[in-house]
Every structure is written in structure tokens, then in C-alpha cells.
């Protein structure tokens, strides 16, 4: 365990409310967003987050630091969210099979030899991308993804998890994680291109 983590874990075990509040503020918003991708509603996502924190507190005495505290917390969260989603008839398959090919770009945009027939153009200056409407396009594009892709891109690109953190939190292989991320980013890029051009 990192020294900082050791002190957080010890504080939690000792019942330090300030330490608990800090941790809730650090991960809570991200946990709620991820839980929402497994279950049907915001209300259920909030219940999942609450259940996860209770499980964290009940398990903190046994936490050995083999993974980071963050990974451990999100592993608990995703397991509870998965179970809750299944109860509601929602399952999130994480296997990204190479056979269900999803090209990143419409094949019609390339010549037969693989060169661009209709190449992408620059989106222009950054300021153009900073409006609320552009942000809403990204939000909607992520919401429209298959849940496994939405969960991976949310962890990686929205909440800034490292690849390793996302793999460990989701218990998926690095390759699988990368394939899901690739498909997700490719679709969000396409949605932005459709909107901006």
C-alpha cells in the first residue's frame, strides 16, 4: 500500500468521519456515473452507491492493499451494480469479440486500396469545440453506446482512470479494455464529426 493510502485506510478503520467524507467526495460522483450505466435509473444508481460504501466500510478491516484502494472500491461498486442490473434484466457483456467487427470509420469513406476517399477535415480552432451544444453531443454519444463501451470510456476519458485501474475495477483483460475503448472513442468522434461538419 502507498503510505497515503495506509493512512486513509487506518483512518476509516478508526471511524474517522472526515476521512470518509473526503473519500466520498473524491470518488462519489464518478461512482454514481458508473453505477448509472449498469442500472435503469438515477434512484437505483444512488442505492447502488450507498450499498457499495456500506460494503467498503464492512470490508475495510480485511483490505490488504493488493490493489489500490480506488480499484478496490470500484470493484465493489461494479459488482453490486452488475447484480442489481441483472435483477432488473439488464446485463452488461464485456467480451469484445474480434468477430463482431465494428469498423471505426464507415468503409465507404475509403477507396478499395484503403486510402481516404472522403478524408476528415480539421475541426478548426479549439474555441469552436467548447460550447455547451458540442458537450451535449458528446454526452449523448456516450449514452448511446453499448453499456460496456460506455463504462470503459467513462472510466478512462471522463473520470481519468488509467488503463490498469479500469481493467482491475472491471476485471477485464487489457486487450479487451482497449478494444472497447477504441470502439467507444471512434463512435464519439463520429458523432462529433457529424455535428461539426
Amino acid at each position: 500500500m502507498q503510505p497515503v493510502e495506509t493512512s486513509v485506510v487506518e483512518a476509516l478503520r478508526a471511524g474517522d468521519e472526515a476521512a470518509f467524507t473526503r473519500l466520498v467526495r473524491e470518488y462519489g460522483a464518478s461512482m454514481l456515473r458508473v453505477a448509472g450505466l449498469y442500472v435503469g435509473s438515477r434512484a437505483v444508481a444512488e442505492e447502488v452507491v450507498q450499498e457499495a460504501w456500506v460494503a467498503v466500510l464492512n470490508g475495510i478491516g480485511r483490505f490488504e492493499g493488493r490493489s489500490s484502494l480506488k480499484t478496490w472500491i470500484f470493484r465493489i461498486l461494479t459488482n453490486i451494480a452488475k447484480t442489481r442490473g441483472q435483477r432488473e434484466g439488464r446485463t452488461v457483456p464485456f467480451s469484445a469479440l474480434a468477430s463482431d467487427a465494428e469498423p471505426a470509420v464507415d468503409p465507404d469513406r475509403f477507396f478499395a486500396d484503403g486510402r481516404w476517399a472522403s478524408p476528415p477535415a480539421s475541426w478548426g480552432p479549439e474555441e469552436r469545440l467548447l460550447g455547451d451544444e458540442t458537450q451535449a453531443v458528446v454526452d449523448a454519444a456516450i449514452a448511446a453506446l453499448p453499456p460496456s463501451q460506455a463504462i470503459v470510456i467513462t472510466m478512462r476519458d471522463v473520470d481519468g482512470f488509467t488503463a490498469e485501474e479500469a481493467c482491475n475495477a472491471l476485471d477485464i483483460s487489457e486487450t479487451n479494455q482497449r478494444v472497447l475503448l477504441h470502439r467507444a472513442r471512434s463512435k464519439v468522434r463520429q458523432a462529433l464529426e457529424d455535428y461539426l461538419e
Partner: protein
Amino acid sequence: MRLFRRELACAEVVEVITDYLEGKLSARDRRRFEAHLTGCDGCDAYLEQMRQTIKLSGRLREEDIPPELEERLLVAFQSWKPA
């Protein structure tokens, strides 16, 4: 005429772009990738768009947990709290 050591095609570039950004290409493939981009405006624009896409996703991040949920969690903590 196709060269013996053929160049990457644009249709391949868009499929390995995440491997590139994640640092997962071999040194040789990375060189091929970068060599292709130097001479291809379309793929260069595509890479830039991918970087902008990632940045825009990051702007969706909300820092704050809803106060009423935080309140409920604190209540749960207090009833758990070791005596």
C-alpha cells in the same frame, strides 16, 4: 506498384489509433504509423480529432456528489462507525 514493405493504409491507421495513443504499438509499427501521418493530411486530421474527442469527454466530468446522497452516506457511516 505495391512496395515490398508496404505502407499502412488509412483504413488501417484508424483501427490502430487507440493502440498508438495507448503506447501499445511495437517500435516498428509506431515508426510506420508516424511516417504515414507525416505524408497524410486525412490521417493527421483524424488523429487530431481523436485527441479532441478524448479532451471533450473529459469535460463531462462532474466533481461533486449530490449533497443529499452525501448526507445519506454520512448517516450510513455513523451507524457503521466502530464504537
